[in-house]
């Protein structure tokens, strides 16, 4: 029992389970999963599918945060990659061709990778503070996306592209496979090679790790490039979900959700040790919380407040300091209750 409690995933998982339980009590249909035309269908499936873009972005954010950085540009990068991909498909003669769609996706993701490399260059080579360096693209990125779409919402009809976010394989949403594949690839790269340890070393003490022979510049640069790439893929999923490139709304405020997911998962914003599994749980928690608003019927006017309160509770529950204070407080109360006279004797 103690080992379970000590596990740093315990509290994030507990928060997620609590949310699911509350939803199920409010409306038992929350956990119902039905089969409809060979596809699984239900609120939980929707949560898995809709969490895919946030999952990709949060994975990249985890790596960046582990290097003591932050990437504010992910939402804007999503808007750019979606705009590029849809503009290519819209302009092609064969929007339903698999080749066209593959080219569009690859080019869209590559453009996002270039933007990530640019961020990494500013941070790792030029030495600009991450929050400022990525702020540049956060503001400029949407402008670029608007230029690409000509200020309009580009819409397309393309079955292969639609499949990215709305298709099903073996009864499960294809988008879920994409996000899970990304989790596996990132986890293998970070945890089955020395890269993860080196990343943590850079985050804990950049100077010491540099003196110890770690190529911190390359590792930091790579982290931002990976974040850009994953955000680009997220932009493809987002635009595929609505079959439109909405330069203003795509990925709006997703950087904040991603940072929140990383923190809920137990990774410190101070850099260093990071938990990919924690981030995965954090993403599902945020997505479940968003569905909760619809399911509990929280009025729109107070839903931001509702979100804020739940997040504060979850963060407080996860705070080791608060828990130890509470534990000490309850211990301090116990002896006094059992022998009230002993205390007064000492005082006199």
């Amino acid at each position, binding site marked *: 029992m103690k080992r379970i409690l000590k596990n740093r995933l315990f509290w994030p998982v507990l928060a997620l389970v609590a949310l699911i339980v509350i939803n199920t009590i409010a*409306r038992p*249909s*929350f956990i119902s999963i039905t089969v*409809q*035309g060979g596809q699984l*269908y*239900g*609120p939980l499936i*929707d949560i898995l599918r*809709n969490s895919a873009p946030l999952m990709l972005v949060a994975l990249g954010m985890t790596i960046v945060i582990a290097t003591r950085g932050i990437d504010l540009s992910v939402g804007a990068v999503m808007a750019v990659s979606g705009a*590029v991909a849809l*503009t*290519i498909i819209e*302009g092609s003669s064969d929007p339903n061709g698999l080749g066209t769609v593959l080219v569009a996706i690859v*080019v869209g993701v590559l*453009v996002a990778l270039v933007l990530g490399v640019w961020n990494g260059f500013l941070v790792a080579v030029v030495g600009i503070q991450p929050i400022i360096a990525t702020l540049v693209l956060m503001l400029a990125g949407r402008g*670029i996306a*608007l*230029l*690409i779409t*000509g*200020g*309009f*919402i580009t*819409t397309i009809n393309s079955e292969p592209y639609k499949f990215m976010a*709305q298709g099903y394989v073996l009864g499960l949403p294809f988008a879920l496979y994409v996000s899970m594949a990304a989790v596996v690839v990132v986890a293998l790269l970070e945890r089955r090679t020395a890269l993860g340890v080196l990343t943590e070393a850079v985050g804990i003490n950049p100077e010491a790790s540099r003196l110890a022979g770690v190529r911190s510049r390359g590792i930091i640069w790579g982290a931002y490039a990976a974040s850009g790439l994953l955000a680009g893929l997220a932009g493809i999923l*987002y635009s595929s*979900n*609505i*079959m*439109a490139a*909405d330069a*203003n*709304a*795509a990925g709006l405020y997703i950087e904040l959700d991603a940072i929140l997911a990383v923190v809920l998962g137990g990774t410190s914003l101070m850099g260093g040790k990071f938990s990919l599994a924690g981030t995965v749980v954090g993403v599902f928690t945020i997505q479940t919380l*968003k*569905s909760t*608003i*619809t*399911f509990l*019927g929280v009025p*729109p*006017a107070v*839903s931001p407040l509702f979100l804020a309160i739940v997040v504060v509770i979850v963060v407080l529950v996860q705070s080791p300091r608060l828990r130890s204070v509470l534990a000490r407080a309850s211990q301090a109360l116990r002896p006094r209750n059992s022998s009230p006279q002993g205390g007064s004797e000492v005082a006199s």
Partner: protein
Amino acid sequence: MKRVLGGIAALGIAALALTGCAANTGGGGDDDLITVGFAQTGSESGWRSANTESLKAALSEENGFELIFNAADNKQEAQIAAVRSFINQGVDAIVIAPITVDGWDDVLKEAKDAGIPVILEDRTVSASDDLYATWVGLDFKQEGKTAGEWVADNFGAEPTNLVILEGTTGSSAALDRATGFAEAIDGTSINVLDSQTGDFTRDGGKKVMEGFLQKYGSEIQVLFAHNDDMGLGALDAIKAAGLTPGEDIKIVTIDAVKDGMQALADGEFNYIVECNPLLGDQVADLVKKVLAGESVDKAYIVPDGAFTQEDAIELLPTRPY
């Protein structure tokens, strides 16, 4: 790909234009042209793009105008700065699509002191109405009411379950449309099951509709979306739930942008109330009248149409936006 390259080229041109502007702000243009500064909100939606195009077309050189255009990216301080720069440049008239209602008194007074008439379009301001010449715009409440009346006429007689996708919480368009709609269906047997915000976006509309469908399933008979984009997002969610939009769930929206009209023509939407962005000609006309010293009213409401599926099939080929 061409458009991507075009976009990059346009970025370069924009950078050039920025430096170019600084060089020739002194002159007010040719004497026979009316110089108009237009402070637009930004380019947040398809509706806004159509609105911008309409004003640019109406305030063109052929029509006797020289237009200085500024899009403020939905930041009020940037928009006020743009209006100040119009005043400094000594333009003949200023057109503003105010981002917010409040905070306009000072800059409007400056324009008035400089003797430059201000014409407001689309949204309104809370400032005293002697600070601007006139306002042209739309009646959001009436749009909601028109949508509500259609629902009441078609489904009001028997108990009908309805869900609403609201616009951005706190925006005047969402508030007024909700009020108008609620008034129109008041006293009928329409039962509003749920109402949530989809933030005027397709993604928001889709996700909230998914939630509604999970919660109520096929109980939902009618959907009212505060704009086309949310309705379009909801279409996918309805199809994914194995229902047919336009039949199993009737859909009423507001805006009548191209994609919305296409959905109406395809039978997936049932009714669209127009929110007309083509205010350019009216604005141009009013600028001329105000400068000629003719008396104008303080407010002009552009009447909105409404379309059925048959109208959409007929109108779609000739719609300008």
